[in-house]
C-alpha cells in the first residue's frame, strides 16, 4: 500500500527532524526515506498500514494544534510536537493499538537503522554516516576467503 502524498510529506518532514542536516547530510540527504519506503514495501509490509495511518494522524495532530500539516510547521514547532508525541501528550485520538509514542519510537529506530547501516541498505548514501562517525569496515578489496 503506497503512502499518499500528504503521508509521504509528513514522513519526510519527520525524518528531517529525527536526523537533521548539519555539517553532514541528514536522513533525507542520505536517502533514509527511500530505505524506509523499501522496508515498508518488503520486510515490514505488515507494519505499513499502521505507519500510514499514524502519518495521517501526525498531520491531523499538527492541524489540530496549528492549522498546518506537519511538514508545513516551523522547525521549532515540529520538534516540540515530536517531544509531545514521545510522551503520548496528544490532542487528537491516536489508535490505542499503536499510540503516538510507539509510532515516534518506531520511526526513530527506522531512521537510525537506515542512516547508520551499510550503504547497500539504501539509507546511508555514500557511507555518509560512517564517514561522520569514523567507521570504515576496512574489508579487503579482494577477499581471499573461498
Amino acid at each position, binding site marked *: 500500500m503506497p503512502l499518499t502524498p500528504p503521508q509521504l510529506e509528513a514522513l519526510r518532514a519527520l525524518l528531517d*527532524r*529525527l*536526523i*537533521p542536516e*548539519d555539517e*553532514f547530510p*541528514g536522513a533525507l540527504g542520505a536517502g533514509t526515506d527511500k530505505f524506509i519506503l523499501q*522496508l515498508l514495501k518488503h*520486510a*515490514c509490509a505488515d507494519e505499513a498500514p499502521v505507519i500510514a495511518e499514524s502519518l495521517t494522524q501526525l498531520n491531523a495532530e499538527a492541524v489540530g494544534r496549528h492549522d498546518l500539516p506537519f511538514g508545513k510547521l516551523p522547525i521549532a514547532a515540529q*520538534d516540540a510536537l*515530536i517531544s509531545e508525541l514521545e510522551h503520548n501528550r496528544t490532542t487528537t485520538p491516536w489508535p490505542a493499538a499503536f499510540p503516538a509514542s510507539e509510532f515516534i*519510537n518506531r520511526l*526513530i*529506530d527506522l*531512521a*537510525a*537503522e537506515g542512516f*547508520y*547501516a*551499510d550503504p*547497500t*541498505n539504501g539509507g546511508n548514501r555514500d557511507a555518509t*554516516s*560512517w564517514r*561522520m*562517525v*569514523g*567507521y*570504515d*569496515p*576496512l*574489508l*579487503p578489496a579482494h*577477499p*581471499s*576467503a*573461498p
Partner: protein
Amino acid sequence: MSATASNYDVIIIGAGLGGGIAAGVLAEAGQRVLLLERGRDLRYRDIPGDHLRHHRLSLYGDNTTYHPTGHPRVFVDPQGRSRTVFPHEADYHNNALTVGGGARIWGMQAWRFHPDDFRMASRYGTPVGSSLADWPISYADLAPFYERAEHEIGVAGDHDTTDYAPRNRAFPLPAVPATPTGAWLARGAAKLGWNAFTPPLAVNTKPYLGRNACVQCRQCIGFACPTDARNGSHNTLLPRALATGRCTLITRAHVARVLTDASGRAYGVEYFAPTTPDSAQTERRKVHAATIILAGGAIETARLLLLSASAQHPRGLGNHSDHVGRHLQGHYYPVVSGLLPAGFENPNLGPGVSIATTQFNHGNPGIIGGAMLANDFVKLPIIFWRSHLPPELPRWGLANKKAMRELYLRGIDLRGPVQEIPSPDSRVTLDPQIRDQFGLPVARLSGTTHPETVRTAEFIRARAEDWLRAAGAERVWSSPMDLRLSASQHQAGTARLATDPSDGVTDPYGRVHGHDNLWVCDGSLNVTNGGFNPALTIMALAFRAATKIASKS
C-alpha cells in the same frame, strides 16, 4: 520413500563445530561418513555484509538462514504466553544454519573451562529448584582434547598468562595484537589487583594450516571472514574429512527421526533432502549405518531425540529418566558500557577482543560460580546507536547525531558469559500444534534459568563496572538483569552427560544411555556451561567422542 543402501559406517547429523570434527576424525580413521546438514554450504560471498541482517543484529532476517519461515519454533514467555517465532527473532535462540554452524560467524573466543566448572555441585552445593550437578568427567580427562582442538582448529593465545587452568603445550598461534583500549584496561585491572591477559581466539594471527591471517577488518563477529582466518571445523576438520574421499556431505537435509530396533539399537535415519542438490523439490529418504551421531545443537538434538520416539521408547530416545530437553542453558551476558577519556586514540580494529580477566570465575563470596570478563568486538555504528549511547541522551535530533559523531570511537564495553545455574524447567519439548515445512512438530522452548543465575550475573555486572571505573572511564552505565530463558548465546545442556542413566541422557563419553551406537557431539552434553564461551569445550568433547568411536570399530 527412496531407500539408500548402507554405504556408510557413520551418519552425523549437523555439520557445525562438533559434527565437522567427528566427521574429520572418523573419516581419517577409515570410516565411511554421511554428514547431513540442514543449512547450505555457504561461501564467503553467500553471507551478506548486511548490518541489519547478520548474527549480532538480525532485525529483518540474518545472513545464513535460507528458509526463514519453514522452521519456526514456539517460545513460551515467563508468564506462560506462547508464540511462534522465526530464526531472526531473539526468542528463537538461533544458531547460524549453515555448514560450519555458528563458527562461520562467531567471535572465536576459544576458552578451556576452569577445572571447577566440572564440579560445580561439589564446590557450591545444589540450590533448591536447580539441577546444578558435577560433570562425570574432570578437566584432566578433557585436557588432551582441548590441546588437540587448539592445534587442529588453530587458536591464538598467550600460554604463559593463560594460567587459570593447567596447560601442557603452547598455543599454535601468537595471541591477538595488543590494543590501546586493552592496555588502558590492563592498567585498570592492575590498580584493582586483578589478573588480566590476552584471551585465546581461534583466529589466524599469522598464516596457519594453509589459510591467511586476519586483516583486522571492522566487520567481524556476525559476518563471514574475508580472509578465512576465522577458524572452525568448516575450514579444518571438515575439509580433511572430504579429502579422504570417505565423507559425503548432503546439505539442506532435514532429519525426521533416528530409527531404532526393538533392542534400542539405532540403525539409521529418515530425512528430507532436495531431489538433486539445487532442486526446490524434496524427497523423504532412509539411510542405514552402524553408528549415528547427533550434532544439531542443544535445541535441535533434543528435538530429534524426542521426535524419534518408538513403541519401545515412547518418550523419546535416551529419555528414560526424563532429562532430554531439560536443563536448557546458555550464558547470561551482563554488558557494561562506558566512555573512553576524551582524546583517546582508538584505532578500532578487529577482532577487538583483546583483554580478559578470570578473576571472578570462582571464589566470589556468597555467589555461585561467576564469569570471565572481556572487552568486546569491534562495534558497528548501528549497534553502537542502539545499545551503547549514554542512556540520558535524546534518541533523535541534532544532539543525538552530534553524540554519534563525538562518542562512537570513545565507546567501550565489557561483558562476560555468566555460568548459569541450570533449571530442569528450562526446556525443549515438542510443540503440540505447530509443525515445520515437513509436518514435524517444532521445538517449544519454555521455562527460565534458576534465580541464582541472575544473582551471579548482577555480581559480575558490578565487577565490570568496577573495572571500567578503575581504568578511568569518563562514565559507566549498565542495566539490571531479569529472570528469563537463556539459550541464544551458547545453547547447551539438553542431553547432559551422566555416569548413572537416571541422572542424565548420555554416558561420560557422549553415548546415549540405552542406545550403545547413538552418540551426541554438541553442546547438549554440557552438564553446566562454564563461565566461558563453550565452543572449545564442545570441540574437545567431539574429538574425545570421535576418538572413542574410531577405536571401537
